[in-house]
């Protein structure tokens, strides 16, 4: 749920501000301008779709797998920028003039990567169905009055 909501939010913010997102991609100095431009338009709808897909049981595994791949790419890009001493804003949730703290962003990326891999592996398995039944469905069930 957290994973889906984060990607949905991040995709919407980036889709509304393509110029700022393009600038964030450019700041990494990893790809040509044209590739950065294509990414600035391609990535936000992809994030929105995978964010939505995580909420749908049949699509959960595919979406979580894609999120894991994306998180691997984002983390690699971040480490490369860090290694080259670039003072960048990560561009993870739209534009910001503040330079990112690499430790915080890297930690967050790794947590999200772990979450995505976990969801991709355990989505729609017997264990996850049991968990959902016990905790999610159990929590939403209406309490009944004991009469005897």
């Amino acid at each position, binding site marked *: 749920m957290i994973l889906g909501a984060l990607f949905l939010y991040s995709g919407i913010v980036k889709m509304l501000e393509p*110029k700022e997102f393009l600038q964030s991609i450019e700041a990494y100095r990893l790809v040509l301008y044209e590739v950065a431009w294509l990414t600035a*338009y391609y990535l936000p709808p*992809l994030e929105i779709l995978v964010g939505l897909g995580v909420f749908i049981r049949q699509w959960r595994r595919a979406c979580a797998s*894609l999120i894991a791949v994306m998180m691997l790419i984002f983390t690699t890009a971040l480490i490369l920028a860090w290694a080259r001493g670039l003072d960048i804003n990560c561009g993870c949730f739209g534009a910001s003039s503040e330079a990112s703290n690499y430790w915080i962003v890297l930690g967050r990326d790794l947590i999200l990567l772990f979450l995505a891999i976990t969801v991709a592996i355990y989505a729609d398995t017997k264990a996850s169905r049991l968990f959902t039944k016990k905790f999610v469905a159990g929590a939403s069930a209406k309490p009944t009055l004991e009469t005897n």
Partner: protein
Amino acid sequence: MKRIFLRLSVLLVAPILFGGLNAWLNPDGPPWSVEALAEGEVNFAVLNSWERSVLWVDAREPDQFEQDHIPQALNLSLSHFDEQIGLFLEQWVPGVPVVVYCGSRHCGMSKELANRLRNDFAMDEIYVLKGGWDAWLEHK
């Protein structure tokens, strides 16, 4: 297994359509080519065609400005905005275009500074030098 590949294909192809629509429906979006100028950007070809003087504003940090800068440029960085804005306002003459630059085409400080000057002081002739300091080094 076949289903998951089908879903992955849909997920990977659909954003091309949505992204394409977003680019098509938003003409104010960033230009496709690195050579093209976005709104409010100028390059030396445009500046030469103006045939009038401009006020150069260097949006880089003071230490970078001290090392080298465009002749007659004023330093006005976002991090020292309050200290440096006074000198800028003294030098600024209405009717003279202001051209802001930062380190390279990868930096966003010049755009942010130009937006701030437009919003805070209602200046309309404020432009950003495409390519920033790197473009100046190539040009001079």
